[in-house]
Structure formats: structure tokens, C-alpha cells
């Protein structure tokens, strides 16, 4: 499971860094390294870009896993360089950005957009498999999540926009319900698809979501 990110456009990063002459850069050694959006190489490239913009990069780090609670210790070790900076430019997913913002008084600026939680499906190819909706239906959909893999998140079968097994919004993307139907047929349980699903309950895990394990 990986948090899939994409670098923001240079103009947006530049705009967010307006007024900050001294910047500290933090990357992440886990997901953002794997997706090549915030690993060592990308952090060093960012350092060079910021220097070209006339910024002073007071230091940089690639935190092993930016979202976990060891991040605080990493930040404390680099306290000098961080205090010397006006802000921290974070090249991790939003979980890392959030983690850093809770342990630093300095402004934290994201350099990446977090797209989805995905799994690697062949080298370098990531896909979203779960939208964390709180009501898992995979047992009735042959392991393919229609909430995630159907563009409209439909629970009762395909829409009329599906064509030759592909999705209305992108002929490169599979129609989730065509695959679900095929797999249920292969499993000899296509009748499961005939079950009516009532409207989803969006109140199962209301936002802000949290849980406490006691």
C-alpha cells in the first residue's frame, strides 16, 4: 500500500514559497521515493530549482517514513537548519505534511499533491483499489471494488456508458462492472450481482474520521 503523489507545477510551488527566502526541504524515503516524487534525487533537484529562484536552502533531509512518529526525532536533530529557514517544503504525501506540521512551529508547504492510496500493479504502475468507504462490498463483487473502480461508484451494476468492456470516461480504463460480471461468472456465482444494494450510508464513518484502539 502506497500513498501515490504527483509533484505540483513549479509555478504553484513558487507561488506558495513567495516571501520565504530561506527554505528547508524534507523528502520521504518510503512512498514518495518509490513514486519518484520526493526521494533523494527529487529533493536534490528541488534544491537546485529553489537556488535558481534565488532562495537559500538551509538544509534538506529524506525522512525514512515521513508520516510516522519518528519524524519528530528527525526534525529535532536538524533543528538548527530548520530554525534557520522561513518554511519547510515537504516532498511527501499529505500524511507526512500533516505529521511535520504537528511537530514544527514553522510553516509547512506541500510540494506534492496526494492522489490516492494505491497498490503497485506491475513495475511503476500504481492503481487505486480501495477508497476506504467503510462498507466493504468486495465479497459480492469478486474482489473488485465498484466504489473505487467504477467512475460513478455504482453499486447495482454498470451504467449505459460502458462500451466493449471499457469506461465511458476513458477508453483505456476497464469498466469495473464488466470485470466483476466476468469474474462472478467464472466463479459460478453471477446471481450475486442480482442482489439489490440500497443507497450507501455515508454516516458510517463521518468526517473527521478517527478511531481509538483500546
Amino acid at each position, binding site marked *: 500500500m502506497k500513498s501515490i503523489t504527483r509533484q505540483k507545477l513549479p509555478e504553484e510551488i513558487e507561488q506558495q514559497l513567495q516571501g520565504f527566502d530561506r527554505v528547508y526541504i524534507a523528502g520521504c524515503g518510503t512512498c514518495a521515493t518509490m513514486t519518484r516524487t520526493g526521494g533523494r534525487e527529487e529533493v536534490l533537484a528541488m534544491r537546485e530549482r529553489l537556488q535558481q529562484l534565488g532562495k537559500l536552502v538551509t538544509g534538506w533531509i529524506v525522512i525514512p517514513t515521513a508520516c510516522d512518529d519518528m519524524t519528530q526525532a528527525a526534525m529535532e536533530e536538524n533543528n538548527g537548519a530548520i530554525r534557520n529557514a522561513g518554511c519547510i517544503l515537504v516532498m511527501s504525501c499529505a500524511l507526512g505534511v500533516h505529521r511535520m506540521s504537528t511537530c514544527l512551529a514553522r510553516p509547512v508547504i506541500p510540494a506534492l499533491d496526494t492522489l490516492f492510496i494505491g497498490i503497485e500493479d506491475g513495475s511503476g504502475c500504481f492503481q487505486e483499489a480501495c477508497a476506504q468507504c467503510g462498507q466493504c462490498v468486495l465479497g459480492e463483487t469478486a474482489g473488485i471494488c465498484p466504489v473505487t473502480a467504477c467512475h*460513478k461508484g455504482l453499486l*447495482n451494476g*454498470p451504467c449505459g456508458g460502458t462500451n466493449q*468492456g471499457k469506461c465511458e470516461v476513458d477508453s483505456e480504463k476497464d469498466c469495473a462492472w464488466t470485470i466483476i460480471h466476468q469474474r462472478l461468472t467464472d466463479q459460478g456465482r*453471477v446471481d450475486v450481482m*442480482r442482489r439489490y444494494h440500497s*443507497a450507501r450510508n455515508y454516516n458510517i464513518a463521518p468526517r473527521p474520521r478517527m478511531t481509538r484502539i483500546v
Partner: protein
Amino acid sequence: MPSRFRDALQSGRFVITSEIGPPKGTNIEKMLHHIDLLKDKVDALNVTDHQSSVMRFPSIGGCLSVVERGGEPILQVTCRDRNRLALQAELLFAHTRGVRNVLCLTGDAVVVGDHKEAKGVFDLDSAQLLKTIRQLESGTDLGGNDLDGAVEFCAGAIVTPEAHPIEPQLIKFEKKVEAGAEFFQTQAIYDLENFARFMEYARPFPVKILAGIILLVSARMAKYMNDNVPGVFVPQDLVDEMAAAPKGEALNKGIEIAGRMIATLKDESLCHGVHVMAIGKEEVVPDILKAAGLAG
């Protein structure tokens, strides 16, 4: 006041519906002209709901105009733009203003339209919307609360007889029937043999099926639909027939083909009626009906 369209469906005669596309803007003159032109020539007039996800004057607004002018509207409702509160509210409002027919649709994806950055809602799907209508008719809303005054609608849905693969669509069709659909208007059909096979499957269900007829205006349009419109397949002989029409005669050829198909569907009792879509060319719908031998 019961649904006149339901009476027509139950009469056993060949039923004709057509549709009106509301304008983008407040100039509704053309829409009113189309309503006046068609309201007495068909059993009911669909009014589209932001067709192809393009923002327009609303379906309910068009339906009110149909009612005011003495016609029988079918309110098209998609699940794309409203959550369950807004959908139920619209149904309550429609009922109070004399709208008695609803076509329940999932709705095209937002990104195929002209507001690509908008949020697609899809809080309900088409089967759930049909169930919602039946629940509102029973006097309670989706929250289980009592209504002070219930609705009553002739409710329908769509089906795509030429979809490939067809099996998942047929399961959805059956779920819509179970959810309360009384009638189906199909996606455009051109291959009557394939449609006859679909009707063999569909006929045992307790629903009325109106075959979708989209007017061809050129060979180019036929090819475009084959390449771009899911579930629409114009056979090569019809494409060739359109292409062979003399210059300036393609529209008349399209009218002739549509009329011929409708006449065959009726004469061979293949289905219960037709839904004629002359997207952008509503003024020729009477000519299509005349070509089909149905002008009254």
C-alpha cells in the same frame, strides 16, 4: 390526476414518445415551439436533464412548460447532479405541478460535459432512484419519515439492447424492473434483428418497451455514433444508404429510414412503442411519424 402516459401504455396501442432538449440560457422560445409542434402528435414528451452533462435550463422547467401547454411530460432525472435530498424534493415539486412521469437515469459522467471540474454526485443510482419513487408513493421518504402528501408517478428507465457485452446490462435491466420500472425507453437501435432477440428476452417482464429511434442526418453522423456513442451500432448497410443519398437529401433519407424502422416495429408488433430522438432537429419529428404512417 393520473398519468395519461400510463393510460397510453396500458391501452395496448403502439405508443409514441419524443423528446425536448432545453436551451442553454433563458431564451426558451425554440423549446416552446418544439413543445407546441409535438405535444399533440405524441403520447408523451421527455425533457432531457443536462443532456451529455452539459449545463442547461432544467428538465423540470421544460416539463412545467409541457404541462402548461396541455402536453404530457416525462421528467428525465439523472443521479449525477443531486443527492438524495435534492432528488426527493424535485419529485415532490414535480408531482405538485402536474408532472406524472419520470425517467430514472444514472446520468453521463461529468467529464463528458462542459463543466469538467464539477463534482459528480451519484449518491443514488438509477435502480435506487426507482425504489425511491416507490417509497415516496408509499408515503415515506428515504429517511423513513412520514410525508404530508405522497407522490404518484409512472416511472421508467433505459436499457441498451445493443450493448456489448449485453449480459451485465440485462442484469441491471432486471434490477430496474424489480425496483419498480414500468416502462423502458431504449438507447438507439438500428439492427432490428438484434432488437427482436432482445425483445424475446424482455417480453416476459411486466414492463412496456419503447424502442429508441435516433434520426440519422448524415453518413458521417452514423459513423461518429459507431465510434463514440456507447451501445449504438449503425449497421454498414444503413451507413451506405445514408452515404448514397443525393446531395442535400441526407436528412430526407434519415427521415425515411427512421419512418421505415418505426413502421416495421409497429407492423411486426416487435415492441410496445417508440421513443423518437431527433437531436437538434425536433421540427422534423412530425415528418418521421408521417413516414412511419403514424401521422394522426
